């Protein structure tokens, strides 16, 4: 009996939602740990557990349902102030998160066979409860806490509520218990009403204090207040300033309490519910407004837009030719006008499609706080993680590819960079190390930086390790510049770690990072100061499907170079080209760059040179080289097209593109070129050792 929940769409939707909720859960637990307990966070956690319980039970996923149910119990106690948030509780919550992740993984691999054992975690959850787990008891607490929350709102008040929520105000319920001994309790209730009106706007009271006779014996009154303050400040303030009261309890107006809130329309309830939290969790709100699209469809759209871009360039070119040929013809002016407008629309379309593939890097950032917490805990270090630019958008394929390198760099920073508190104390640094990760856009690129204030890279040790691992000879080591020594860390199999622990030093190192950055046509730079810290800067293209290419000519063949690899273009008099052991080099900005004539590798004659040569300074990952070209054509958007299976992968080329005149140009792959250059000069390899950049080559 294959029900609707067996369908792949449903399963996909369930998994997507679960992933989202799990990320949110992680974020919230971390927030709880850092900022302490607030009703908002607890409510958020409760809601996540509740959502997960609902969806997993709909999917018939028993184990997840049971676990989330137990979580709900614990969180419910917290919410009702029957349980304090403490370290053990937070740890249990983290364990729950881990178990939920494992359950989800199990579900992905085989739904019929969920291996993860949830019994221990359920026990731990029950252990943190103040009293023995008791179903009846839970029911009772619920009743007690909510017993006087019964609002019957009119349409006016609902409109007010909506308005408030939309403008980002908080809606709070204030339960007040007026002291037994207070005379004229209803007058006291009115005074409280007045006081609350100073802090915000009271839109409803229960019972209605304005209607009750003066001598009525009311001791519990609930006020519904719209205010800018959050629940805890509001509560503290009223507790301090109100007279003749026994108890004030302020809770945000949403979640479970809504069940008692009699509202005519159900749909509206949901809206209020979501909007109320929108201030704290914008994320959730956005999710409800998006549409999930298959990546393949986006991919196809991207391809079609690519075709349009090419055809548009051709139309423009043909139009220009016609214009020159029949300059007096108005129709051709029309054609050019249309062509311009179409080109603008295509431009916007392209941007739109590209944006639809973009995701904020926040998604990735969300994974870091937990990781940093666990790592620093296990290494007994204190680390403050600062994440900046989470809203920076990147192509999702790039985000996927860059995840591993970033995680690696973070581990590295905590493991090797940031010192233990006692060492930091000795060196006069604050005990807490700072790890700052930023993302931002710069022109057509995304820049990611990972910076720590740790001990920095010990260049001497790097040199020694490199000599020991026979990456360089001790003679070479003498001649290396500082930057060259730093770049040695990217060498395959290189690691300065003395001790192997389970975090890093498993034989993998910065070369993995370099390879990933390579693959994305990115550039990586390292700055380090001993005793002060290390900073990695990664520059990545925005997308891989369309790139800004620099068109150059090598003899009379046109080639496109990814702009993301182009560092600068310089024109040098030929006589300034020098030779180091047969390798042509040029000094550009005080750096010695090896010069490459692709002509030699492609067996095409070098053009008779003028007095100057154009050198395109290329960078890939940590390497730099100068490519000598005959002509610079300009830069333009190029659509990357694969060379196809028949041709296969050719070193030095990443694909081809179609130019405005319909001709084809190959796109040069800078990684491939640098490989090609180093592999073909096998006999001259010794020369390379001394020359810039090529040191630490694979």
């Amino acid at each position, binding site marked *: 009996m294959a029900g609707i929940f067996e369908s792949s769409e449903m399963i996909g939707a369930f998994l997507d939602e679960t992933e989202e909720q799990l990320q949110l859960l992680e974020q919230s637990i971390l927030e709880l740990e850092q900022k302490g307990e607030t009703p908002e966070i607890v409510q958020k956690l409760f809601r996540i557990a509740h959502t997960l319980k609902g969806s997993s039970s709909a999917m018939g996923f028993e184990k997840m349902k049971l676990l989330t149910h137990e979580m709900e119990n614990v969180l419910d106690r917290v919410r009702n102030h029957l349980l304090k948030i403490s370290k053990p509780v937070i740890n249990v919550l983290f364990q729950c998160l881990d178990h939920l992740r494992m359950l989800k993984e199990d579900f992905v691999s085989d739904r019929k066979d969920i291996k993860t054992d949830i019994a221990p975690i359920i026990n731990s959850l029950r252990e943190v409860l103040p009293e023995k787990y008791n179903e009846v008891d839970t029911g009772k607490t619920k009743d007690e806490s909510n017993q006087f929350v019964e609002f019957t709102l009119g349409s006016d008040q609902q409109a007010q509520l909506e308005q408030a929520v939309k403008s980002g105000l908080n809606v709070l319920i204030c339960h007040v218990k007026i002291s037994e001994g207070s005379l004229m309790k209803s007058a006291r209730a009115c005074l409280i009403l007045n006081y609350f009106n100073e802090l915000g706007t009271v839109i409803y009271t229960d019972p209605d204090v304005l209607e009750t006779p003066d001598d009525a014996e009311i001791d519990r009154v609930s006020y519904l207040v719209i205010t800018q303050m959050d629940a805890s400040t509001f509560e503290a303030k009223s507790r301090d300033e109100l007279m003749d009261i026994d108890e004030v309890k302020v809770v945000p107006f949403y979640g479970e309490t809504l069940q008692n809130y009699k509202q005519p329309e159900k749909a509206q309830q949901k809206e209020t519910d979501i909007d109320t939290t929108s201030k704290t969790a914008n994320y959730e709100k956005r999710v409800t407004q998006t549409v999930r699209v298959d990546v393949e469809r986006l991919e196809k759209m991207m391809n079609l837009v690519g075709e349009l871009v*090419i*055809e548009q360039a051709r139309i423009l070119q043909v139009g220009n030719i016609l214009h020159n040929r029949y300059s007096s013809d108005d129709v051709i002016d029309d054609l050019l006008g249309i062509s311009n407008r179409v080109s603008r629309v295509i431009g916007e379309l392209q941007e739109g499609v590209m944006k639809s593939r973009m995701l904020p890097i926040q998604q990735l950032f969300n994974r870091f706080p937990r990781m940093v917490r666990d790592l620093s805990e296990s290494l007994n270090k204190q680390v403050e993680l600062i994440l900046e630019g989470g809203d920076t958008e990147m192509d999702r394929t790039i985000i996927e590819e860059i995840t591993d390198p970033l995680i690696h760099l973070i581990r590295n920073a905590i493991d090797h960079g940031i010192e233990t508190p006692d060492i930091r104390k000795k060196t006069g640094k604050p005990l807490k190390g700072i790890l700052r990760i930023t993302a931002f856009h710069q022109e057509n690129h995304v820049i990611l930086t990972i910076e720590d204030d740790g001990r920095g890279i010990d260049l001497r040790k790097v040199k020694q390790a490199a000599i020991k691992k026979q990456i360089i000879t001790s003679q070479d080591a003498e001649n290396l510049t500082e930057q060259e020594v730093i770049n040695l860390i990217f060498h395959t199999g290189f690691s300065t770690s003395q001790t192997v622990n389970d975090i890093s030093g498993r034989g993998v190192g910065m070369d993995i990072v370099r390879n990933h950055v390579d693959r994305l046509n990115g550039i990586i730079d390292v700055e380090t100061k001993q005793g002060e810290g290390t900073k990695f800067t990664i520059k990545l293209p925005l997308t891989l499907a369309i790139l800004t290419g620099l068109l150059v000519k090598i003899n009379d063949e046109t080639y496109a170079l990814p702009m993301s690899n182009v560092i600068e273009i310089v024109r040098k008099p030929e006589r300034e080209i020098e030779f180091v052991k047969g390798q042509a080099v040029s000094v550009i900005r005080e750096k010695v760059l090896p010069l490459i004539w692709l002509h030699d590798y492609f067996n095409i004659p070098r053009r008779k040179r003028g007095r100057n040569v154009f050198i395109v300074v290329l960078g890939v990952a940590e390497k730099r080289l100068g490519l000598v070209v005959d002509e610079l054509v300009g830069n333009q958007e190029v659509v990357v097209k694969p*060379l*196809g299976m*028949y*041709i296969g992968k050719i*070193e030095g080329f990443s694909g081809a593109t179609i130019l405005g005149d319909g*001709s*084809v140009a190959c796109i040069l792959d800078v990684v491939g070129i640098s490989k090609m250059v180093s592999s073909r000069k096998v006999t001259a390899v010794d020369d390379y050792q001394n020359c810039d950049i090529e040191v630490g080559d694979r």
Partner: protein
Amino acid sequence: MSVLLDAQYVEYELANEKYALIISDVYEIIKMQKVTPVHNSKPYLEGIINLRGKIVPVINLHKRFGLNNYTVTKSTRIVVVKSRDEMVGIVVDRVNQVIKFLEIQPPPEMVAGINGDYFEGIGITDEGVVSILKIDKVLYEA
């Protein structure tokens, strides 16, 4: 052989010899155009062209079969074939006609100085013999 006999063939010329391809393999025939070289690739790969927005590799059969150097003339054509779900262009000196064969004989060991394995067989017509190429083998096997 009867299937081969019923089929139609595209007859073309290469260094004054007649060759044929089964028509179902032929995607289209276009005039010779500017071919962008792809260096460091297969030695007989002439380069790549733009076929209505698609990048299509073009091979040179002269080079493939070690025939004498060819020159591009007015009649030079690129026969685009579909092989293994991919389009590949083949440079030929001229495309003559679409024909059917009266008889097809198995290929001898050598055909016009080329290894016989590259051929499906030899087609017989009123005007003489035509060598039928096994396109997959020509494209993919060394």
